[in-house]
């Protein structure tokens, strides 16, 4: 069976799953239980959208990996289903963003289908744009502080997180730059590290500007991973990590927001009341600073092994007030874990794992340095972002608000991840063509 027919079958399976998901949410929400055509229409439109994307893939990158697009479709379907269950109004907007995301996905494929490696020529442009995008929220009048982190830009009623796009631009820049300089860097001469130290400085600056440990960790983590892949020197990555920790420790001492995050992470529960910065009074930490994390853990714990069932979870008080804030963005994983239980949450993580495995497979199969670095960088970025947000929700690391790729509610995130997907498919297509595996 050709690669594209496999992709088509995978997509149809995802479409069926989506229909079942929507139907069960619909049944759980309405009373008396009856199946409305509306939920099936939703799934139908969803399937049609991805079939269109599939056709573009058939035309533009016929030999690309057949699993990634269905996996992305599945993740975004899980996301929309959950968002529909939590905030029906947001689900409509999220669907629109997915349509835009798929559109940009198609556009990227069509524009770059002959040879995506032209990107390499513009690497410095991408690098500068990435830094500019990261700085954007710091501009007065433009930047928005939400939940303590300055990650947003607002123009009129339109608001987005430039960091999401900056991440991809940064990877494109690094892939080009590192391919160019990898031999000299591997020799370890200090002057070659100038531009890299610059990036470290920029990451630290971003950290200070945005107050957000998560974004800084993500961007710097991608940088170190790609540096390691390019030079083969683990010592560089370890030194870089040490520098980051040192920098973060320095920031920790002087930025109270970062300090709070770490304190909350280490001791979310206190037996005695402690000073609560929000109210200025004494309160138990679980009732004050760490209430988001603690309530999210309660949500996860309440799911248990099998979950409460879609639509049957508890996210509001008996009066209807929300218990967990930012439920469909930062904390969407705790909602999934409650309704689908360990089985569903582990299944979701498995989908992420498959995506990551396929991405690295593309990096391995690619036959030139730029493609390898690009695919490895994009895939590792995807994995690290998943780890930072889910790990934060699970109290593995301090919690920072970034999105869960394809699943969380949020336009910038959805659009950026579809572009990431398009780039991976481009690399995969070329690798398979070069290796003559196209007809496999």
């Amino acid at each position, binding site marked *: 069976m050709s690669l594209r027919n496999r992709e088509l079958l995978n997509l149809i399976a995802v479409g069926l799953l989506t229909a079942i998901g929507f139907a069960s949410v619909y049944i759980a*929400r*309405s*009373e008396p239980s009856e199946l409305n055509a509306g939920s099936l229409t939703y799934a139908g439109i969803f399937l049609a959208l991805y079939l269109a994307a599939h056709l573009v893939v058939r035309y533009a990158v016929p030999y690309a990996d057949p699993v990634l697009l269905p996996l992305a479709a599945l993740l975004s379907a899980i996301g929309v289903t959950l968002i529909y269950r939590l905030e029906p109004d947001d689900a409509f907007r999220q669907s629109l963003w997915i349509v835009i995301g798929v559109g940009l996905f198609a556009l990227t494929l069509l524009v770059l289908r002959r040879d995506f490696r032209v990107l390499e020529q513009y690497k410095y442009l991408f690098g500068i744009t990435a830094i500019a995008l990261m700085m954007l929220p710091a501009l007065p009048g433009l930047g928005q502080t939400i939940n303590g982190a300055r990650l947003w830009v607002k123009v009129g009623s339109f608001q987005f997180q430039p960091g999401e796009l900056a991440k991809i631009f940064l990877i494109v820049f690094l892939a080009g730059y590192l391919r160019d300089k990898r031999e000299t860097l591997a020799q370890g001469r200090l002057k070659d590290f100038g531009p890299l130290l610059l990036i470290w400085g920029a990451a630290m600056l971003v950290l200070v500007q945005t107050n957000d440990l998560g974004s800084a960790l993500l961007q710097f983590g991608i940088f170190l*991973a790609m540096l*390691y*892949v*390019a030079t*083969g020197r683990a010592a560089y990555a370890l030194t870089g990590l040490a520098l980051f920790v040192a920098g973060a420790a320095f920031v920790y001492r002087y930025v109270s927001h970062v300090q709070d995050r770490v304190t909350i992470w280490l001791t979310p*529960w206190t037996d005695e009341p402690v000073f609560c910065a929000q109210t200025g009074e004494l309160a138990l930490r*679980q*009732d004050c600073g760490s209430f988001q994390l*603690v*309530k999210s*853990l*309660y949500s*996860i*714990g*309440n*799911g*248990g*092994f099998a979950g*409460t*069932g879609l639509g*049957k979870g*508890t*996210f*509001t*008080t*008996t*009066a*209807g007030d929300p*218990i967990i804030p930012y439920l469909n963005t930062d904390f969407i994983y705790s909602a999934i*874990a*409650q309704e689908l*239980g*360990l089985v569903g*949450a*582990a299944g979701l*993580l*498995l989908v992420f*794992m498959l995506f*990551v*495995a396929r991405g*690295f497979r593309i*990096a*391995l199969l690619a036959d030139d*340095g730029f493609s*390898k*670095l690009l695919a*490895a960088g994009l*895939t*590792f970025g995807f*994995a*690290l972002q*998943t*780890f930072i947000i*889910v*790990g934060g929700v*699970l109290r*593995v690391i301090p919690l920072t608000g970034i999105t869960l790729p394809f699943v969380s509610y949020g336009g910038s995130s959805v659009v950026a991840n579809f572009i990431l997907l398009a780039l991976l498919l481009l690399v995969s297509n070329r690798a398979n063509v070069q290796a003559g595996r196209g007809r496999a």
Partner: protein
Amino acid sequence: MNKQITRLALTGVGLIVALVVATTYWQAWAAGDLADRQDNQIQRVAQFTIDRGEIRGDGIVWATNREEKKSGRTFYFREYPQRGLAAHVVGYSTQERFRTGLERSMNDYLTGQNANLSTVLETFVDKAKGATIKGNALRLTLVPRAQRAAQNALGRRCGAVVALEPQTGKVLAMYSSPTYNPNLVEENFDQVTGVGADCRRPDALLNRATAGLYAPGSTFKVVTAAAAIDSGRFTPDSEFVDPGYCEVYGKRVNNYDTSRPFGRLDLHTALVNSVNSVFCNIGKELGARFLVDYMKRFGFYELPPLETPADERAPSGLYKADKLFDPAQDTDVDPGRFAFGQERLLVTPLQMAMVAATIANDGVVMKPQVIDRIVAPDGSIIVRSKPERLDRAIKVETARAVGAMMQDAVEEGTGTAARIGGITVAGKTGTAETGIAGLNTTWFISYAGKNRPQVAIAAVVEQQNSTGGQTAAPVAREVLQALLGSTANS
């Protein structure tokens, strides 16, 4: 570069594996601990969708549900038709203030989450069908008219009453004053914390019956007398001389009334008239560690067993700096004052009721139980409480000898206010100084019955300016009368 990419791939996959491990930790390993946390609002709200089991007993509904539909979900909110009558035992189950009492300790049964096979199957089927999960119901041993008698007798005074069936350990009455209305906890908590009463710290939420720690005063002489006779070193006829005081470490310790020394008297008479100096001398003779050993046989130094939450109960014994104190040497405590119930000795009414019940039950301590049975939604009985023997504290003869002394104390001694016509009542009064002049903690422990002991009781009243015989004994008598169904007056 492929070697590096492979390693990076392993790192990336490893990060996600770590997430699977962490999720498993929270959902399988730590889920129980999370669910038990007091501030777990999700758990609390989720449990309102369960048709919680009712709490009933002796023809009365202690706790039931009010069904309410809100935003497409059906919630079962708790209602307490008897309001404050047994609030400290039954407790409450709320969204904002979590749970207390049996509502808290028996939550697994009440919400159908207990591990009994039939419940597990039923809950599983309900869950799979999407039907409302039904909890199991509790049947209590409490006797409502005894609760009411205790409530009326204590009135605005602070204190507590515990009544046990000596042979089975069944809790017939457990009342703590002041009480509160559990229906107000969710929305009018101020009214609960603001309940007033005639004592310094009313604290209506405290279950004084199981967690109130008081100096036992002379009621402790029952334990001392039991230890003394059981040791074989004293008999009820052992002779003493009472000069009106006793000397310990060169200091005088006075009787309640120093103006009338008894002179020569035996142990029996000493208990009937509650003569401090005699018990002081017995204490010096037996030593503190010997007394502590006997206390432990009665259940002191351990949480008194009951189905209510452990942190709503307190162990009785010697206390030092707010902690239980088990003396390593006799000289660590003053054995004389210890023997008549002073000297940093703190006890709960439940423990003193257990002492009275043990005397009434020929020296065997029974486990107090307030739940009679647990009933499944289909009416079948899941758990039926059986009388449980904890320990033999003293010999049968010792128990009978001490019992005879307690009978005479009611007939002709300090406890005459507890006499009930046609019924044999045995008892011991206690009046413990609180360190504030004119404010005593007053006690009465007793057992009574027509032909054999049917009820054992302990009553305590806080901050009284007279004796246990005048204040606590009448309270105990009211409750005994309610339980024994006698209308006769003394």
